[in-house]
C-alpha cells in the first residue's frame, strides 16, 4: 500500500520530469522559460518532502524568483527572429547527445541500484563544543539549525565557506556589471 509521502513524491516527481522535458523540448524559448519556473517550483516541493523547509523557500525565492526574471530579461534583450516558430533549435549533434544522456542515466541508475549505504560510525570526529550545552543549544527547527550551521562561532559551523560565498557573490555582481555595460 502506498503511503502519503511516497504518493506526493511521485506526483511531484512526474511533474518535475515532465517540465524538464518541456524545457528541453519546446520550440518557443519563452515557453521553455516558463516551464523552467514550474520545474523550480516542483523542486521546492521535493525539498519540502525532505524536511528541508529553508531550502525550499530559498529555492522559490532565488530560483523561481530572481533567476527566472533574469532569464526572461535576457530573452527580451536578445531578440531572436522567429520567436514563435523556432527560437530554440537543436544543433546537429542532438542524436549523439541523446545517446550519451541515455547511457549516462542508465549507468548512474545502475550504480545506484548496486549501492550499499554505509551506516557505520565515521569516528569521533570533532565538535566545536558538544550540542546540548549553553554554548551550543539544540536547534528547535530547520531554519535555526541551518543558521547555527552557517553562523555559529561556538559550535561547529561553516562560517568560512559562507564568507567565501559572499565574496563570490560580490565578484559576480561586479563582473556582471562590467561585462554587461554599454560601451
Amino acid at each position, binding site marked *: 500500500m502506498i503511503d502519503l509521502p511516497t504518493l506526493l513524491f511521485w506526483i511531484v516527481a512526474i511533474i518535475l520530469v515532465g517540465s524538464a522535458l518541456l524545457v528541453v523540448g519546446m520550440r518557443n524559448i519563452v515557453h521553455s522559460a516558463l516551464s523552467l519556473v514550474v520545474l523550480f517550483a516542483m523542486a521546492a516541493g521535493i525539498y519540502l518532502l525532505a524536511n528541508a523547509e529553508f531550502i525550499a523557500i530559498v529555492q522559490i525565492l532565488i530560483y523561481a524568483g530572481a533567476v527566472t526574471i533574469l532569464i526572461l530579461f535576457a530573452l527580451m534583450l*536578445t531578440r531572436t527572429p522567429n520567436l514563435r516558430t523556432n527560437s530554440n533549435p537543436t544543433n546537429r549533434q542532438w542524436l549523439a547527445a541523446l545517446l550519451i544522456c541515455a547511457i549516462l542515466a542508465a549507468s*548512474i541508475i545502475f550504480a545506484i541500484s548496486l549501492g550499499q549505504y554505509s551506516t557505520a560510525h565515521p569516528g569521533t570526529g570533532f565538535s566545536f563544543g558538544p550540542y546540548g550545552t549553553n554554548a551550543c543549544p539544540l536547534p528547535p527547527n530547520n531554519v535555526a539549525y541551518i543558521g547555527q550551521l552557517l553562523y555559529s562561532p561556538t559550535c561547529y559551523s561553516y562560517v568560512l565557506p559562507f564568507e567565501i560565498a559572499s565574496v563570490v557573490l560580490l565578484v559576480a555582481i561586479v563582473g556582471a556589471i562590467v561585462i554587461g555595460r554599454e560601451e
Partner: protein
Amino acid sequence: MLTLNHFLILGAILFCIGLFGAISKRNAIAVLMGIEIMLNAVNITMVGFSFFNKVKPYSTYLTGQIFAIFIITVAAAEAAVALAMIIAIYRKRNTVDVGEINLMKW
C-alpha cells in the same frame, strides 16, 4: 516507503535531461537553462542524502542542505554573470547562437 533511491534516481534523470539540453541547444539561454536543471538535480540529490543521513555526530546531520545552499548561491551568481555575457555577445555579434561563437576553430 520513500527511500534514498527515489531521490537519487530522480536526480540522475533530471541531470541527464539537463545535460541533453546543455549539449544540444543552439540558443545560449537554452543552454543556460539546461545548466540550471543540472544544478537543481544535484541539489535534489544533496537534500536527499541529508534526509536519509544516519551518521551519528549531530553536526553532520544537515551537511547536504548546507551544500545545497551554497550550490544555490553559486548558481545564482553564475547565472547572472552568464546572462551578462550573453547580452554582451548579442550586442557585438547580434546573435545568441552558440554555434556562431567559434573563434577557436582550427
